[in-house]
C-alpha cells in the first residue's frame, strides 16, 4: 500500500494515471470507516487534504455562478459567507453527522460515495449543479443528474478526480428538511430540498433516501408551474401545498430497510415537500432567502 500526499490537482491526476486503482481520500469520513473495519484491504491511497485548490470557491458575478471546490468541508458551507449564498446547502450541511464529521467531510466525498441518503446531493439536484471532473488527459463537466447513476454508483471514471461543483445562484426561498430518528449523528430516513427561483419563475424539489439515487419530482414541479405564478412572491393555499406534496411523493420509489419503511418514507417526503412549499410562500421566512 502506498499513500500519496498530493499538493496540487496536477499531482493528483498524475498519480491517478500511475495508480488507477488508488482511492482518493478527502475528509476520510467514509473511506476511513471502511479501512478501520477491514485493515488489509486499503490499497493505494491518494490523499487530497493538502490540495488547497480543492478548498477554494468563488462566484462568477456575470453569470451568477458559484464554483465550489470538491474539498470544501461542511463546516465552511454552514458558516458565513457561503450560508448566505446557498442557505439550503448550509441547512443540509448542518444535518451531517456531528461537528467533528463536518470539519472533515466534503461534498466531493458525498458525491464520490453517492449514497441515496447523502445530505448534500438533493441540494445539488435541486440546483441542477454541474460536476467538474479532471484526469491526466483533460477536464469535462457533467450534469448532477447524469453523474448519480445508482446506489453508491456514479458516472466518473476510475482515473478521474472531482474538482468541484458549479451552480447558478437564485433569488427566492430555498430550504432543506430531513427526517431521522434524532437530531445529531443520523443518516437520513427521508429528506427534501426545495429551491424557488423567483426571477426565472420555477420551483425545483429533490428528495433523498427514497430511491436508488436522488429523485427530482419533475411532474409535480410542472403541475405547480401550471397552477401558480412562480415569478416573484408566490401565493399558495394549504390545499394546493398538500396536493403538491402528494404528487411529488408518487415520483419516489422508496424501500423498506433497517432504518424505515417505504410507506413511512413516502408519507414523510409528501409532508416535507408540502411544508417547504408553504415556507416558500410565507413572506419573510427568516434566513432562507438566498442573497
Amino acid at each position: 500500500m502506498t499513500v500519496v500526499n498530493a499538493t496540487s490537482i496536477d499531482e493528483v491526476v498524475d498519480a491517478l494515471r500511475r495508480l488507477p486503482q488508488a482511492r482518493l481520500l478527502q475528509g476520510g469520513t467514509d473511506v476511513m470507516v471502511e479501512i478501520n473495519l477491514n485493515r488489509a484491504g486499503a490499497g493505494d491511497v491518494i490523499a487530497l487534504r493538502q490540495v488547497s485548490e480543492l478548498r477554494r470557491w468563488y462566484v462568477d458575478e456575470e453569470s451568477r455562478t458559484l464554483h465550489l471546490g470538491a474539498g470544501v468541508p461542511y463546516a465552511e458551507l454552514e458558516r458565513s459567507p457561503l450560508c448566505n449564498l446557498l442557505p439550503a446547502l448550509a441547512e443540509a450541511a448542518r444535518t451531517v453527522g456531528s461537528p467533528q464529521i463536518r470539519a472533515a467531510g466534503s461534498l466531493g466525498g458525498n458525491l464520490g460515495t453517492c449514497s441515496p441518503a447523502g445530505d448534500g446531493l438533493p441540494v445539488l439536484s435541486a440546483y441542477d449543479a454541474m460536476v467538474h471532473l479532471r484526469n491526466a488527459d483533460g477536464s469535462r463537466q457533467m450534469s448532477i443528474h447524469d453523474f448519480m447513476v445508482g446506489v453508491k454508483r456514479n458516472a466518473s471514471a476510475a482515473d478521474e478526480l472531482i474538482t468541484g461543483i458549479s451552480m447558478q445562484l437564485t433569488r427566492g426561498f430555498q430550504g432543506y428538511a430531513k427526517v431521522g430518528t434524532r437530531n445529531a449523528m443520523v443518516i437520513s430516513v427521508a429528506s427534501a430540498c426545495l429551491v424557488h427561483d423567483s426571477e426565472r419563475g420555477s420551483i425545483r424539489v429533490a428528495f433523498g433516501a427514497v430511491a436508488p439515487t436522488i429523485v427530482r419530482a419533475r411532474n409535480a414541479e410542472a403541475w405547480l408551474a401550471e397552477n401558480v405564478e412562480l415569478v416573484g412572491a408566490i401565493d399558495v393555499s394549504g390545499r394546493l401545498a398538500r396536493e403538491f406534496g402528494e404528487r411529488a411523493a408518487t415520483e419516489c420509489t422508496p424501500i423498506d430497510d433497517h432504518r424505515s419503511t417505504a410507506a413511512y418514507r413516502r408519507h414523510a417526503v409528501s409532508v416535507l415537500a408540502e411544508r417547504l412549499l408553504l415556507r416558500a410562500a410565507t413572506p419573510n421566512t427568516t434566513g432562507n432567502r438566498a442573497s
Partner: protein
Amino acid sequence: MTSSQDQGNEFYALTVNGMRHQVQDAWVGESLLYVLRERLGLPGTKGACEQGECGSCTVVMDGEAVCACLVMAATAVDADIVTVEGLSTDGEPTDVQRSFVDAGGVQCGFCTPGLIVAVHALLERNSSPSELEIREAISGNICRCTGYGRIFEAVRQARDTRQQGAQ
C-alpha cells in the same frame, strides 16, 4: 520529507502537541488514533467505535476538532495536532478539566478526554456559547454514564469562569 512523495512502509513525521514525532515501521493505513496510542505513547485519546460515532478520539487538527479514528495518520504530516495531553501548558489541569471535576461531569471517565478536547475547541472559537451552541458542539461526543446534565453544567462553568477572567 516532501509532502508529495509516495510513502511506503518506512517512516513519516507528525507534529503532536508542538513536537515532531517520527513514526517508524507503521502500516501506512493506520488511523491517527492508533498511531497516537500505540506508537507515540499518547493513550489519553480514547478509541471505542472507530467509525466516527462516539467522539472519544477527538483531537484538534489545524484548529478544528476531528475524530482521530477517521484521520489516516500518514496523510497528517503537515498538520498541527493537539491531543488531550497537550492542552495544559504547565502540567496543571486546564480550566475545562477543573470544571468537569467540580461539576461532577466525570464518572467512568472514558468519554472525558474527547469531551475536554471538544469543549476547548468550542471555547477557542466562541467564548460565550449559548445553551444550544453548547449542545451542538458536543453532539458528536457520547457519554454512557452521566446523562449529560453535569457535562453541560461543566461547560457553562468553564465558559463563565473564562468570561469573568477576561473582564
